[in-house]
């Protein structure tokens, strides 16, 4: 039975979970999406602990609201929508905290990028330094542009899928991706000068 579940597509698995409340189907979906979601959320918020919590909450929402998924949509776009919304809410909360608090939380979060344990062990030091610089630049891009650039250039979604995840028109997605990339390129040039 378990072998058969592994062979199922994402949509079939969630259908199984919805219809028969099969917890194994849920676990397989978690196993499939925990890493890409963590990667996406981490690149978006720039904090390891927060990104882990966001992905945990995403999976909890998925567990509790499985029936809100409609079969005509792709499961990946649905789960990314949940994760993206939670990440955006977290950014808003953090912005509010930064305004109210004397202490700048962003600085603390940026420092966490240097946690080498979080990267795969085969990653060399040079590439990790380069990765930190890119991550810093990404965090300085406006969140509305950052989200679509990440979905397109790191997660590899199509324009249509991104439009579905973000609930935007394809034209808006396209322009945001372009603006985001332009901002990022400019920032990366400045970083290389430093």
């Amino acid at each position, binding site marked *: 039975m378990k072998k058969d579940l592994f062979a199922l597509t994402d949509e079939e698995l969630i259908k199984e979970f919805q219809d028969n409340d099969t917890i194994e189907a849920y676990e397989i979906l978690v*196993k499939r999406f925990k*890493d890409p979601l963590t990667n996406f959320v981490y690149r978006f918020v720039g904090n390891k602990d927060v990104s882990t919590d966001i*992905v945990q909450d995403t999976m909890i929402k998925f567990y509790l609201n499985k029936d809100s998924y409609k079969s005509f949509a792709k499961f990946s776009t649905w789960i990314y929508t949940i994760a993206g919304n939670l990440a955006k809410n*977290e950014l808003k909360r953090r912005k509010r905290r930064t305004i109210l608090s004397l202490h700048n939380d962003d600085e603390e979060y940026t420092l966490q990028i240097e946690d080498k344990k979080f990267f795969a062990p085969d990653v060399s030091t040079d590439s990790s330094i380069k990765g930190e610089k890119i991550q810093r630049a990404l965090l300085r891009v406006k969140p509305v542009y950052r989200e679509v650039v990440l979905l397109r250039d790191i997660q590899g979604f199509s324009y249509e899928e991104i439009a579905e995840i973000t609930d935007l028109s394809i034209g808006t997605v396209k322009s945001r991706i372009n603006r985001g990339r332009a901002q990022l390129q400019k920032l990366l040039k400045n970083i290389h000068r430093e």
Partner: protein
Amino acid sequence: MSNNFYNEEESQFQELRAVLKELPKIKAEDNFEYNLMTRIHNKQFDSKLLKREKYSLFGFLKPAIAVGAAATLVFVITQNQTTEVENPFAAIPEVRSEVAENGSSVSTPKEFVVADNMNKPAENYASESVEGVIQTRRLILQDNDVITVAQEDFPFPDRSFNLDARMRSVDATTARDNSSRVLAGTGDPNRIYFEGFFTGNQSAKKTIDSLRNKSFRNSLNKKLQIE
């Protein structure tokens, strides 16, 4: 058509896209699934992010609490320490009665010693001083301006010296009576200090004028002789 359009857009940032693709993939923690399934099993569905938010709100209040405590401390300290210096020229002087009431416990009454035989003739005065039986009156001036009189023997009859009587006997031309102050005895801190000698009677005006004329004439003659 749409694919071509996308390709044009993508080609503009080809280098950037390659850099982003090279970024290391971040993986979830090893115990991610275990933690998730434990939460589901225990029905702990409340968001960890909101818990973090509550904690952060307390953290946000910490500096405010510290500032408030510091301000209270400074206020308490400065309230107890008045650094204002009173300008003595601007201060309103106290009423005498108030000063007497306030300082009654600290101040000591002033005492004036007056010889009992001050109105007696000089010869008697001297003879009495030799005998050493001078009676004195102690006039005590209280803070409330009440003067009390206490009669007592002169404290040091052997050691004191009646200067008035002595001066009368030596220089009879200078008339002095006992209206001037009497030299007081020594050793008693309540006694008034000796303040010098005073003439008792005014010299005759005619005598003074004649002396002045005489000295003026003398000085004029001297000047003429020099010239």
